[in-house]
């Protein structure tokens, strides 16, 4: 049982084997799974363990070397040092409501007000006369960080918001509640929730790429600064940024960076 727990022992040129662990953003996670699966199909002896945790954890894991690759779904802040960042994709954040909610378009301003708690009833934005249930992500989430920055200008979220700790559970909470509003990675959309247009712009890869849809953020892979990457880690990052890797990115509904 006592074999291969490190990735340091490969010399380049041989077939790639060993383990790398990736941790962090739950928004990046589905994409990472796809990329890792494709990569492991080429390199049968390689093992890429993908786990969640959230962007904050991903950054931290990369800084400390707890994981070989950290994943974040927002850009780094100025004080987040000690890591090397690779942007691997651009992702939009879709504002979602229950599929039976009549509203399909909202202004960015209204969305801001709803999440700040200044608008509390759907009738104020043209819907039925019922209270709005706000669903947000937890502290440390990259999606939340990006959303707070772009939509809330870093003001405080309404204190009454329901907090869910992954893309999937926000989607679940909104899909179960006709009065709810939330936000998720567009790669995490499915038909259990309805994305709304923001200022008449639909959240799609095309509108994000063109810049017309403004609520977007990068997906970033991070490695520890000043520590030599293992051949496997390097090979994986190279693969992700390659033609092949980037086509997987767009196949999964994200905007490629190359």
């Amino acid at each position, binding site marked *: *049982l*006592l*074999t*291969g*727990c*490190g990735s340091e022992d490969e010399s380049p040129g041989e077939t790639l084997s060993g*383990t790398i*662990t990736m*941790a962090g953003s*739950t928004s990046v*996670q*589905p994409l990472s*799974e796809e990329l890792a*699966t494709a990569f492991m199909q080429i390199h049968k002896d390689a*093992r*890429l*363990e*993908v*786990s*969640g945790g959230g962007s904050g954890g991903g950054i931290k894991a990369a800084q*400390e*070397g*707890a*994981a070989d690759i950290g994943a974040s779904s927002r850009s780094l802040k100025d004080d987040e040092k000690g890591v090397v960042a690779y942007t691997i994709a651009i992702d939009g954040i879709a504002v979602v409501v229950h599929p039976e909610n009549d509203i399909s378009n909202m202004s960015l301003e209204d969305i801001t007000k709803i999440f700040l708690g200044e608008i509390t009833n759907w009738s104020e934005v043209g819907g039925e006369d019922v209270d709005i249930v706000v669903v947000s992500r937890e502290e440390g989430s990259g999606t939340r960080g990006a959303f707070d920055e772009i939509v809330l200008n870093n003001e405080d979220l309404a204190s009454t918001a329901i907090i*869910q*700790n*992954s*893309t*999937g*559970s926000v*989607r*679940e909470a909104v*899909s179960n509640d006709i009065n709810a509003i939330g936000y998720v990675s567009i790669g995490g959309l499915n038909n*259990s929730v309805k994305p709304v247009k923001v200022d008449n712009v639909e959240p799609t890869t095309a509108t994000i790429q063109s810049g017309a849809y403004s609520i977007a953020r990068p997906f970033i892979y991070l490695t520890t600064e000043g520590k030599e990457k293992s051949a496997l880690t390097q090979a994986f990052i190279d693969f992700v940024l390659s033609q092949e890797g980037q086509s997987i990115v767009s196949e999964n509904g994200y905007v490629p960076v190359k």
Partner: protein
Amino acid sequence: MTKAQKSQFIAFGFLSLIAMFTFVILLAILFYVLSRGLSMISLEFLLEHPRKMGSEGGIYPAIIGTVYLVATTLAIATPLGVGTAILMNEYLQDGPLKRTIRFATEALSGIPSIIFGLFGFAFFVILLKPITGGWSIISGALTGVTMILPVIIRASEEALKNVPNSLREGSLALGTTRWYTIKKIVLPIAFPGILTSLILSIGRVVGETAAFILTLGGTLLLPRNIFDGSRTLALHLYMVAMETGNMDVAFGTGAVLIFLVLFINFTTGFLLKRLVKKFS
């Protein structure tokens, strides 16, 4: 009816009702989870690898991960736990040492699992990463050991206590040493009880999530050895439900877990019955 009889009638009726209600709750939970989960269970579900973060495909790696974790945890915890129990019950007299161990064991058994998780994360995952490989089955198992140790110690002690003292006296009075008496008389009799404690702790490991979410890593890949990260069935259920929202897979996993628990309980029940038989 006299007054006393009347109030007895009412009280007993009421208590019986509550008891039935409890029973119904259990049935409702079981029935609900199984009715939604059973249709998911198939050979493919059990033997395939998951796809799309677990929302498609099967749960094979989680099954194997569970087996690995349970085996590793027990392999470490059994000698420690049973050994401690023997020491506590057969050798140590009341004194500071015994009291310290007793205190520690009791304190450990009361600590919430999330604290074990915090500790396991800081100690086994981060600090001992060069040895444990960070998030890995061994990190999870070592964390699990700290959790189930009190269960094993206490239940084994109980089993040892149930060995009538007269048998120890009988053996010692023939001029045997303590260890010989333990080996030849006490342990064979206590064996079913000790085994029961081990199986109980399997249940604990199988059902635990909070401690393992911070120590196992939660990868969907099949573990190859104990230094690989992994996820257990319970962790898989949680992650699938929370990250992907695919409740069918979650309930399918839940149904498998329930079968596992049923199996565990059945086995302990069987062992306990044997134990009882031996002494009556």
